[in-house]
């Protein structure tokens, strides 16, 4: 579904992505995690073609990312910060995107569950941050795309809406879609992810499925398992060394 091959990206002095290779398939919910500035958003933007990698290639559905923009019809993207033209009405935004995608069938579940039609007449500038986040989420799911990319989807949402969004993600996961998700709220990821990709300073520390991560760290809870990875640099490095040793022994999980 998405194939990332030896991608490098450098912003001036900072190596943001350092030799990233991975393959994501249908039915996976991949959690991209890592400290701030570890390159999560840059990786997502590279998949969307917003950032051009210095080296390496990315394919979505066997279509190279740097060519024809048509491959993006397979992707629904929910950005970290949703800002829309101030005077555009909510209804107009949906109308416009529908015209751009000219796709007949739409999935308006989230639209209804978030009660967005009631704010259709409101200009974007009057919406609260949370409501804008709901608009972004509804847009991402609107065209029933086979790939969903959600960048910090639950930031700024109230608990009830977070729950609605989580349930929607689970529903889509059951439809055998590929979902990429970044979040710092690990408890939100716990119930939905199948795979974890851990980035640190542009390096891919590991990419493996939840079961083996739980087994290797001896922690059932995702947050605790990840906390082990993130805690203290030295132990962290030792842990990763051991992990890599394991990984080479068991052959690459990719």
């Amino acid at each position, binding site marked *: 579904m998405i194939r990332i091959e030896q991608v490098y990206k450098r*912003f001036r002095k900072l190596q943001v992505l350092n030799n990233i290779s991975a393959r994501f398939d249908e039915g996976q919910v991949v959690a991209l995690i890592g400290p701030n500035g570890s390159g999560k958003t840059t990786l997502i*933007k590279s998949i*969307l*073609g*917003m*950032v*051009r990698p210095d080296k390496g290639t990315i394919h979505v559905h066997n279509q190279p990312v740097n060519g024809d*923009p*048509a*491959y*993006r*019809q397979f*992707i629904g*993207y929910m*950005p970290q*910060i*949703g*800002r*829309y*033209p*101030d*005077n*555009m009405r909510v209804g*107009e*935004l949906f*109308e*416009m*995107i529908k*015209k*751009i*995608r000219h796709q007949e069938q739409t999935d308006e579940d989230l639209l209804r569950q978030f009660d967005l039609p009631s704010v259709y007449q409101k*200009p974007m500038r009057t919406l609260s941050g949370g409501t804008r986040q709901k608009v*972004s989420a509804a*847009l991402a799911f609107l065209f029933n795309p086979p790939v969903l*990319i959600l960048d910090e989807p639950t930031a700024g949402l109230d608990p009830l809406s977070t729950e609605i969004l989580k349930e929607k993600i689970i529903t889509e996961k059951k439809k055998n879609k590929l979902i990429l998700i970044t979040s710092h709220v690990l408890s939100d990821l716990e119930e939905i992810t199948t795979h974890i990709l851990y980035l640190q300073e542009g390096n891919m520390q590991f990419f493996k499925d939840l079961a083996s991560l739980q087994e290797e760290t001896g922690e059932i809870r995702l947050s605790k398992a990840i906390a082990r990875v993130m805690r203290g640099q030295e132990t962290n490095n030792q842990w990763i060394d051991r992990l890599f040793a394991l990984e080479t022994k068991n052959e690459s999980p990719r």
Partner: protein
Amino acid sequence: MLKLSRYVLYDILRNKIVIAYTLFLFLVSFSMFRMEENGSKALLSLLNIVLIVLPLVSLVFTTIHYYNSYEFIELMLSQPLSRTRIILSEYGAVCVSLLTAFWLGVGVPVLLFAPDATGFALLFTGSSLTVVFTSIAFLAAVRSKDKARGIGLALLLWFYFALIYDGLVLMILFAFSDYPMEKFTLLLSALNPIDLGRIFIMLKMDISALMGYTGALYKDFFGSGTGVAFTSGIMLLWAAVPLWLSVRSFRRKDM
């Protein structure tokens, strides 16, 4: 392409700054024509405002609009749309909205009070300057990632074209006053769209008679069909080249 620009245009036309700008232009033009008995005198005063205010508003509004739309542009980039299409849609929408403001604010009064050759020259110059400075502003905005730097650059460009350039030209003319400079100043005027616009309109007015031999030479040139073609051509270049450069750099840019 029209789908995107149409919605962006709706958005900008409802923008308070654009509405205020339209009203300001309208009030100024209207009061000029009301206060001055002589239509061409009113046009002259209006000309000075158009030459200063239009480039400034086009530059500053366009850069601010670009930075405010940054996240929206990102969202559009995640749709199956090419980068060229997105940036040209944004450009088209900003251009059309600023032109609408100009035509409502200055166009309507001019057509009411002074619908002659000079009036039309003013409208032509104003429209060209709007398009030209929107292009230049897009280039400044696309090239600089930082908002403060982009707006600063736009202001600097305005200072250069509206104020500094004239000083430089005067200095050159003064230093080389012993030589025949008529042809050369013609070339210099092409290097600044504001100057070009000013000369183009001035020569449609009676006051050009006061400018002596140079004025006569200019009048001969700009009054003819070649002059109109020359002005339009140079304006077109001033609009197309920065736009082309900004599309090119937007296509390669990391968002």
